[in-house]
C-alpha cells in the first residue's frame, strides 16, 4: 500500500499546482499562435514548448540540474544568445537603402520615442496598487517599444531578469501583430495625399560604402557609447562578414545554421522563465499593455517625424515609411509598402522603407546602450 502511495506521489497528477496548469495552457496558447496563426513561429514554438516543460511538476527542468536551468544561465543570463542572434541579423541586413538615403536615420531615431515614452508609462503604473516597477524594471519594459526581440531579451536579462519571460512574450507577440497594430495609426496621422507621395529612386551604393559602413558605426559606438558595443559590435561583425565578400561561408553560417541553432536555445531559455510565480501576476498584464502603447507611440512618432522632415526638405518623404522606424525587420517595411500601395497602386515603398527599418535596429541598439549606461549599475 505504501509503495502504491509513493508511486502516486511521483506522478504528475498528484503534484500539479493550479498555476502550473495555467502556465502550460499559456504555453499551448503560444504554440497555437505559432502553428495555426503563423505568429513569429521560429521563436514561439520553442518558447511555448519551453513553457510547458518548465511547468512539469517533479521533473525540475528549471531547477539546478535541469536542462532549461543550464540553457538559461549559459546563454541568456550571460547575454550570449541574444548577441549571437544579433550577429545573424547583421549578416542578413542590407544597409544599401539606408546609405542611399541617410536622412531616413532620423526616422529610425524618432521611432525610439516609443521606448522612452513607455518608460514614463511604466513608472506611472506605480500609482496603481500592485505595481512596483523600479527604474530598471521600467527601462527593461520600455525596450519592447524598440520592436527588436534580441535587444529586448538582452536588456531584460541585464536589468530585470525576473520580468524577462513577460517582456519576451510581449515583444515577440507585438512584433507578430505589427500588420494589425500599425496601419490604423499610420492612416490616422497621414492624409490620403501624403500617402500617395512617390519617392525618388535610390542611388546605387558601391561595395566600399557597404564595407566601411559597419566599421564606421562600430567606431562611433566605441567613441560615444561603449555600453552599446556588445549589441552594435556583434551586429557590425555580422554585417561586415556579409559585405566584405571574402567570408561568404561564415556569413552564410551566421545567417542560417548558427542563428537557427541559437533560436532554438533562446526560445527554450525564455520559455523556462514562464513559470507560474514569475508570470501569473498583475505586473505581466501591465507589461503587455505597456508593450502595445510603446509600439503605437513608436509608430506614430516615426510618421510625425517624416511629416516634419517634409516641411523642411525639398525632397519629399512618404510619411508611411516613418512607421518602419520601429525595427521589426522586415515586417514594418512590408506594412509601409502595403499601406502605400492601397493609396497609390503604382507606389512601391518597400526599398525606401528598408532605410528607416534598419535605422530602427541601430536606433534601438543605441537606446538599449543608453539605458544600460544610465540605469544599469
Amino acid at each position, binding site marked *: 500500500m505504501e509503495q502504491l502511495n509513493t508511486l502516486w506521489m511521483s506522478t504528475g497528477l498528484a503534484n500539479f499546482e493550479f498555476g502550473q496548469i495555467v502556465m502550460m495552457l499559456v504555453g499551448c496558447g503560444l504554440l497555437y499562435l505559432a502553428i495555426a496563426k503563423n505568429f513569429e513561429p521560429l521563436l514561439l514554438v520553442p518558447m511555448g514548448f519551453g513553457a510547458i516543460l518548465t511547468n512539469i511538476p517533479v521533473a525540475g527542468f528549471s531547477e539546478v540540474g535541469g536542462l532549461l536551468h543550464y540553457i538559461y544561465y549559459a546563454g541568456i543570463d550571460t547575454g550570449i544568445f541574444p548577441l549571437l542572434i544579433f550577429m545573424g541579423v547583421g549578416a542578413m541586413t542590407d544597409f544599401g537603402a539606408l546609405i542611399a538615403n541617410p536622412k531616413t*536615420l532620423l526616422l529610425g531615431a524618432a521611432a525610439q520615442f516609443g521606448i522612452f515614452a513607455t518608460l514614463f508609462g511604466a513608472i506611472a503604473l506605480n500609482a496603481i496598487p500592485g505595481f512596483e516597477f523600479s527604474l530598471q524594471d521600467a527601462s527593461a519594459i520600455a525596450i519592447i517599444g524598440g520592436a527588436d526581440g534580441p535587444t529586448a531579451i538582452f536588456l531584460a536579462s541585464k536589468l530585470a531578469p525576473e520580468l524577462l519571460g513577460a517582456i519576451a512574450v510581449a515583444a515577440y507577440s507585438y512584433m507578430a501583430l505589427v500588420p494589425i497594430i500599425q496601419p490604423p495609426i499610420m492612416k490616422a496621422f497621414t492624409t490620403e495625399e501624403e500617402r500617395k507621395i512617390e519617392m525618388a529612386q535610390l542611388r546605387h551604393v558601391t561595395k*566600399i560604402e557597404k564595407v566601411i559602413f559597419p566599421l564606421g558605426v562600430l567606431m562611433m559606438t566605441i567613441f*560615444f557609447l561603449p555600453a552599446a558595443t556588445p549589441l552594435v559590435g556583434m551586429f557590425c561583425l555580422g554585417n561586415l562578414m556579409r559585405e566584405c565578400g571574402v567570408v561568404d561561408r561564415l556569413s552564410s553560417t551566421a545567417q542560417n545554421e548558427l542563428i537557427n541553432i541559437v533560436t532554438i536555445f533562446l526560445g527554450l531559455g525564455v520559455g523556462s522563465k514562464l513559470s507560474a510565480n514569475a508570470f501569473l501576476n498583475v505586473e505581466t498584464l501591465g507589461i503587455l499593455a505597456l508593450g502595445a502603447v510603446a509600439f503605437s507611440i513608436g509608430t506614430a512618432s516615426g510618421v510625425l517625424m517624416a511629416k516634419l522632415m517634409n516641411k523642411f526638405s525639398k525632397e519629399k518623404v512618404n510619411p508611411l515609411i516613418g512607421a518602419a522606424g520601429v525595427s521589426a525587420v522586415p515586417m514594418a517595411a512590408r506594412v509601409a509598402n502595403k499601406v502605400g500601395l492601397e493609396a497609390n497602386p503604382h507606389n512601391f515603398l518597400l526599398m525606401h522603407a528598408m532605410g528607416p527599418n534598419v535605422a530602427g535596429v541601430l536606433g534601438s541598439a543605441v537606446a538599449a546602450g543608453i539605458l544600460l549606461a544610465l540605469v544599469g549599475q
Partner: protein
Amino acid sequence: MENLTQLFIDAGKLMLAGMVFVFAFLGLLIIFINQVLVKLAIKFPDPVNQNSRKKAKVKTSEQDGVSPQIVAAISSAVSQYRQKHNNKE
C-alpha cells in the same frame, strides 16, 4: 508618493537624455555617410567589369522574363497569319 515623484523626475531625465543622444548619434551617422562614404564611393567606384556583367545578366533575365503566355500568343498569331496567307495563295 514622494518616491514616485522622484521616479517620475528620473524617468523624465532619462527620456530627455535618451532622445537627445539617439538623435545625436544617428545624426552623426548621417554626417559620416554624407562626408565619408559618398566621397569614398566617388573615389573608388565599383569595377566596371562587374557592372557590365550585371547589366548583361539583367538583359538576359529580361529576355528570359518574357512570359510564356506572351510567347505562346505571338507564335499562335504568327501561325494563324501564315495559315491565312497560305489559304489565300
